[in-house]
């Protein structure tokens, strides 16, 4: 049964670490202005993720990827 479970806002510092780690892991060299823009987009994505994850679907709901065996 779906249940609302409010989650805290993800901290800016955590997002900055996430972004820097991801750029390094993907061997992407980003100029400071690109990074700043990307970080603002990541803020929006993180807020969207908080909204989505705040609905607790339990353990039974299957994800819906594209795969047809």
């Amino acid at each position, binding site marked *: 049964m779906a249940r609302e479970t409010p989650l805290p806002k993800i901290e800016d510092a955590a997002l900055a670490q996430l972004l820097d780690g991801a750029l390094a892991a993907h061997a992407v060299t980003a100029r400071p202005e*690109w990074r700043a823009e990307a970080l603002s987009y990541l803020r929006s994505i993180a807020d969207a993720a908080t*909204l*989505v994850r705040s609905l607790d679907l339990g353990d039974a709901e299957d994800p819906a990827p594209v795969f047809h065996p």
Partner: protein
Amino acid sequence: MNAPHPVPDATRLATATAAEIAAAVTAGSVTARAVTEATLARIAAVDGAVNAFTDVTAERARARADAIDAARAAGSALGPLAGVPFAVKNLFDIAGLATRAGSKINRALLPSARDAMLVEKLEAAGAILVGGLNMGEYAYDFTGENLHDGASCNPHDLTRMSGGSSGGSGAAVAAGLVPIALGSDTNGSIRVPSSLCGTFGLKPTYGRLGRGGSFPFVTALDHLGPLARSVADLALSYDAMQGADDRDGGQTPRPFEPVAGLIGDGIAGLRIAVAGGWFRAKAMPEAFAAVDKVAAALATDVTVDVPDAARARASAYIITAAEGASLHARRLADRPEDFDPAVRDRLLAGLAIPASWVDAAQRFRRHFQAEMAKLFEQHDVLLAPATPCRAPKLGQRSFVLDGEEMLVRPNLGLFTQPISFIGLPVAAVPVRVDVGDAPELPIAVQVIAPPWREDLALRVAAELERRGVASAPVAVL
């Protein structure tokens, strides 16, 4: 060059519907070659202002037209789209051209060896490809602007956006350059240009039409479909494009389910409702007025709340950002300077999305699908705005919706994203309402049906067209 004859008829037919052109070519009142020449002439005369085309495949089109005329002369049966010119968003493979997908980077790809599946299907039905169309870079766009090729302009007001990412498709159809254009729709990229340019558009059910030979954006959400100036043309082209595609691993096997013979069945017995909640919140008055006009014409006063649409949109946003970034990760590392910055910086953000966020979005997708299925037990069709406003000005960065200043680029799709998120079929129907700024410009309404019921969406769209509520006239240029 063969003399086109009769010339006056062909010139008129260059801005006619596909059904009219096919009927004239089949009857022999005009040759396919004459229609093709008139179409190429109109593109040459008009497209400099509209910038819908990035490639014109003139010689290929002439050869194809001659083959159709020869087939008719030999007494062979012609297809349902005989002699009908069409064009495709430049993420569809066209044999002999690099599939640029709106980008600078892809221009270095080898020319495609084969046409995309849907190009092959339309040509098998007698249609004639005349070129590739402008689009937002890698389809990550709702504006129709493109750093590398320039913006495709709205034919109804050249200072305004065509909408994206299938902006060239909307512009080409609205400008009367072709009667049918193909686009892709991941989060709204057929429905947004249909709304801004005032064309009919069909985003079929996810998995219905084969995507083989099209450059992907987010395979979990990518759909392909037609834009046209009549519902009958949507139906004709949609029927021609159905069928198994062994190049698309995401296609769902379905029987051939033609709709062209059903769109005149009317709406008697259909349970039609207006989508409320999220779909009645953040928009300009003209978006709600358009829905109300359509609802009144269909004699419905039922409004239903679509549960959790905000979460659906958020989930689509996450999946798009993550999968789009994954697709382009290597290019971001190797050629970051060659991206449009507005696209690149969003893709960079997408690289940082944890798998758990994507998984949560995909799990919610299944949940939302089940909730919407319950809604469709009570209703056959839902109505919602296609865009929150008419076409914004080119270069416009923000607008105010319900008192909140919001960015144009991501928010033109705020009503389309929750619907494509679960792959529902939608017909976009363009209407005009005397409300708000620039009332001469069109704005579209989404007619939303349950999965695999494109016929219902198109029946309602056809009824609105028949009653004169929805129409897609060629823009005066």
